[in-house]
């Protein structure tokens, strides 16, 4: 996989493992620039969020009340109640004003505030996404490091091909297969895992039994997520390790008489980590938006599915509200990534 030119570039770019300087508080200028950039991104996001959802051809009132005996007067009243009778610029200013006041709006479909709707689903979303994220990062980075270090070995070939195969598999299909094998059972295997939800309603909803029960329900959705996404970390880590492997500083480290493990761990790994860290932070920001397919298959009460449901009406306050939450989360995580980079990479600190 490692082309000579890539190695050459890596050699050029590789920093000397100089003794680390203590972390300085970033210059106010740097922080201000980054904060300003984040604020601008957020502003642009607000506009995009509004335009995107409002230009969609839709008729929320008819869609929402379809099949229910509603009179025309009621439809008209509903239009007024939802603010759909106002001109679009007025709705835009209402939306911006409300957002800046921390008010995410009021769901049309669920008849409750978007904040409370979102809050009730944040816990389950983060539990599922956090667990699968942590496992895939640890597993992916570890496998990537190992297979990159011995690129071309049997271990590398098995790891990389397995990871890429799973990465190419449709999430929906994999989830259904796992559901059928582990919940329903196939041939000699009897199903033993729950098919849906986050807990078994017949068990007490508190204490150790409850935690174990939630863990049981978490297994299949988290497993599906891990299997589908861990390949990203494997491939990124693998290629950065391969790039670092040829670096002269590693030769120096070996010449000092360090063991292979120590060279990999103390010298190659920290440099190879940088691209992965970027990706980890990017994904951290996206965690809160959940995973629509996995949540749908395993009926996990998460935010991804809420957003999808809202899109079918479309429930504009929910869409706009969750869009703001999701974007804010990505923007904050990017900001943190920028700051973390200063800690991890001395070169950035010089900027």
């Amino acid at each position, binding site marked *: 996989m490692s082309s000579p030119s890539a190695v050459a570039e890596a050699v050029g770019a590789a920093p000397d493992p100089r003794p680390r300087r203590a972390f300085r508080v970033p210059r106010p200028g740097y922080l201000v620039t980054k904060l300003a950039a984040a604020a601008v991104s957020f502003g642009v996001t607000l506009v995009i969020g509004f335009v995107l959802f409002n230009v969609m*051809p839709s008729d*929320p009132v008819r869609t929402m009340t379809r099949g229910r005996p509603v009179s*025309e007067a009621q439809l008209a009243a509903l239009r007024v109640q939802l603010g759909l009778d106002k001109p679009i610029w007025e709705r835009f200013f209402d939306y911006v004003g409300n957002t800046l006041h921390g008010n995410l709006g009021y769901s049309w479909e669920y008849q409750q505030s978007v904040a409370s709707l979102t809050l009730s689903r944040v816990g389950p979303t983060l539990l599922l996404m956090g667990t699968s994220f942590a496992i895939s990062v640890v597993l992916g980075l*570890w496998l990537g490091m190992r297979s990159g270090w011995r690129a071309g070995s049997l271990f590398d070939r098995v790891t990389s091909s397995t990871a890429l195969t799973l990465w190419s598999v449709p999430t929906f299909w994999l989830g259904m297969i796992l559901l059928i094998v582990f919940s329903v059972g196939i041939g000699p295997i009897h199903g033993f895992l729950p*098919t*849906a939800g986050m807990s078994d309603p017949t068990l007490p909803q508190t204490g150790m039994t409850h935690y174990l029960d939630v863990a049981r329900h978490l297994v299949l959705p988290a497993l599906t997520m891990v299997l589908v996404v861990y390949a990203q970390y494997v491939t990124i880590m693998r290629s950065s390790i391969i790039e670092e492997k040829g670096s002269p500083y590693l030769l120096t480290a070996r010449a000092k008489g360090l*063991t292979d493990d120590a060279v990999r761990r103390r010298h190659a790994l920290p440099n190879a980590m940088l691209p992965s860290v970027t990706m980890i932070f990017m994904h951290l920001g996206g965690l809160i938006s959940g995973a629509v397919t996995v949540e749908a298959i395993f009926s996990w009460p998460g935010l991804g*599915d809420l957003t999808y449901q809202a899109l079918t009406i479309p429930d504009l306050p929910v869409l706009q509200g969750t869009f703001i939450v999701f974007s804010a989360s990505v923007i904050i995580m990017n900001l943190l990534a920028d700051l973390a980079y200063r800690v991890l990479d001395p070169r950035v600190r010089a900027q």
Partner: protein
Amino acid sequence: MVVRESRRIRAMLAAACVSGLLVAGPAALATATAARADSSTGATSGTTLRVAMDSSGVDTLNPFTAYFNGALDLFGSIYPSLTSIDENGVPGPYLADSWTLSPDHLTWTFKIHSGLKWSDGQPLTAADAAWTLNLIMTNTVAGTANGTLVSNFASVTAPDATTLVIKTKQPQANVTYVSIPVSGIPIVPQHIWQSHVADLKDYKNDTFPVVGYGPWTLTDYQTDQYAKLDANKSFLLGAPKYDHLIEQLYKESDAAVAALKAGQLDYINGVNATQFSSLQHTGGITTAQAAGDGWTGLELNPGARTRSGKPIGTGNPALSDPVLRRAIAQAIDKKTLVAKVIDGQGQVAAGYLPPAWPQWNWTPQAGEEQSFDPAAANKMLDAAGYKTGADGIRVDPKTGKPLNLRLGIHSDSSNDSAISTYLVGWLKAIGVGVTIQPMSMTALNSDLGKGDWDMLMDSWTTGPDPTYLLGIQSCSTLPGDDGNGGNTDAFFCDPNYDKLFAQQATIFDPAQRAQVVGQMQDILYKADVDQLFYYATNKVAASTKVTGLVTGKPDNGFYPAQTSFWSYLKAAPVAQSASASSGSSTGTFVGLAGAVVVVGAGAVVVRRRRGADDRE
């Protein structure tokens, strides 16, 4: 070397841990709770019936503002209504033991059953019903979901605890359908709700157990997950046979079917044709088809216009010609659609009202049936002057433009896409070109309202009272001149139809009313604006450990419409056999064994790696 060796061991341990987490996790956790009892018995004391909640879920537990079917099913179980709908689809007693109508057809007097108590012990009287209905009539928020149902009510009073008097402004035949389980108005306890009138919009009604009266009491609801209910053993219409009811939300119907096969679920109302065919051959599961309560069909834009007759939208003007519409109707082979699209699980449609409610049943008179006859359709179009162009597409004689029609379909419906491919071929055979336009439901609705369409796939379901479904075909539902308002289904408008619509609302003899409703269906059938293809059956699947879930007697292989109200009330556990539990523990052991094998394999891989290291 010692250091190196310990690292290897650490790495091996890590590998084992990770693969363990991934694979042994399920097994380990399974053992922790493997001793769990079978789904039908449950861990809580007593028997538990586990059913799949309607996939729409619950939008809110506030019965005044909820729209979703998942919520309506719950309200049907936990709040009473004035009347119930019996197995023949006609109103029967519930809170009201009996009712009478004054000779002027304006005053209804309901005799409310005496001695009933809400689940908190407070008396349930006619005053509660009067208070609920009055609130819906007078409070805009309270009327959000059901305001229309009482819009013709002049007053509702409770002169004493067992008498409820409803006066209507105009004679209204369907008063006994206004408060029925699930699709009608639920009666709520006044002593609980009167303090929430001010904040009705925000009141979530999530203090458990929810005070109500019905076959069940709601004891817990977890957002987007499940509702837990306890049986009301002193229920007026017979005690539920189960002690507990759990409605679990499955967002994906395949997952619900998997749960049914795994024994984690006892009942699904509404599986699709593919799932039904597979479940028919699955052991431990019974299936049944109930007569469909809705139709699937095609709408043709007959010339969209506003209430005052101003044309709107971009619909193809050719479709205002009844000859073309009739030709399209004759070009479509409904029997093939039933056989191929829904696996034969349904009936070819003709009348506008579905067979689930046999009292409104209407069939075209002999000689007036529109049958599949492309040759006749072609002949008809030739005679009307639609000449065929060089590309095989006919030309509209009025505009001189080729007959190319747009066909809007629901992008998330596999049935729509299957039907639309047939339609393209069939309409090509009569010289009509079709462009399929898949759209989201909401985009379709938007185009529909503006008249920006030629043909749309459409489907509707209805409860036992057809007023609403009939209403969306009346002229009064056309949009106003500003293009807003209105809830017309297909811009159909016929004064004769409207006259009959007004007439049927005031006919109190069911047979006579059905006859007028039949004439209305005749008008719709002959107009070819709503071309109905089929009534798909409502397919249910249940565990064989439960009996009684499927209610009524089959007629011609089809059961009457299945409602959650009666199904859950009549469901009863079948005596258990002992074999089920041993099977699940075997499963655990097999799972554990599998996990051990995989972890072992992982360890071997790591060992091999270690060997490779050493070889270097």
